[in-house]
């Protein structure tokens, strides 16, 4: 069985969780044997921009040293068995230079989505 996780909300609680919770659960399920790809749309297309960094955060004197690395999560999710797609128009609407993106992601146009989605047994939109 093949699943597609569509991620549209971006940077949701990433400081508290030290990751994106949907990208994280996608990793966890794939590691458990799930056939799983990911589609980034909306604001989440920014996840595949290279060289993102989050500095340490200190709140009330408590320093959080292990910052979230969502970009790294997405890069590490890409593999022989899991693809990451990104919606081209959502990048363009945000003026995100395609040359600044992870090499591992694949572009998909909006009009190609029906064909892409029909290739999966279940599609989950987070």
């Amino acid at each position, binding site marked *: *069985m093949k*699943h597609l996780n569509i991620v549209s*909300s971006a940077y*949701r*609680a990433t400081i508290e969780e030290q990751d994106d*919770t*949907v990208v994280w*659960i996608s990793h*966890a*399920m794939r590691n*458990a*044997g*799930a056939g799983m790809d990911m589609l980034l749309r909306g604001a989440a297309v920014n996840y595949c921009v290279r060289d993102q960094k989050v500095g340490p955060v200190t709140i009330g004197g408590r320093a959080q040293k292990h910052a979230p690395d969502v970009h790294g999560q997405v890069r590490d999710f890409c593999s022989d068995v899991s693809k990451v797609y990104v919606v081209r128009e959502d990048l363009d609407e945000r003026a995100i230079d395609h040359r600044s993106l992870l090499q591992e992601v694949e572009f998909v146009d909006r009009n190609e989505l029906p064909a892409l989605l029909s290739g999966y047994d*279940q599609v*989950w*939109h*987070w």
Partner: protein
Amino acid sequence: MKYPRTFTIVLMDAPFEASRTATALRVIDAAVRRGFAINVFAYEGAVLLPFSHQQPHANLVHGRDAEEEDHPLPREWIAGLMGLAAKRGTALHWINCGLCVDERGAGEAIDGVQRGTPADLWKLASASDNTLIVATA
């Protein structure tokens, strides 16, 4: 029309925060009444939906004491749905994401709630006719 028989639903919102949760519970109610088996995987704040220490309160703005206010509690809705499922001869399996429970200190849940992992979600979804994600906005 032939309906599927087993659904998995993922909830993410914490209680008393979003109307999506009440809508999702109404969907579950309707599905159970039609004999569907339902799996719920509670992720992130949703693990507090069946938290056993939820308490009703009075509401001075409404001018009602706690009994008159009859404040709805998600844990009671969930317990009711589990009871309804049993009466209908089907099942409502509720699994709380264990790490999410630990983060929130939400270990004390009503009877019938199980602790699980993303691997459990994968197994439930794979055995279901379909899966509905009710994500936090």
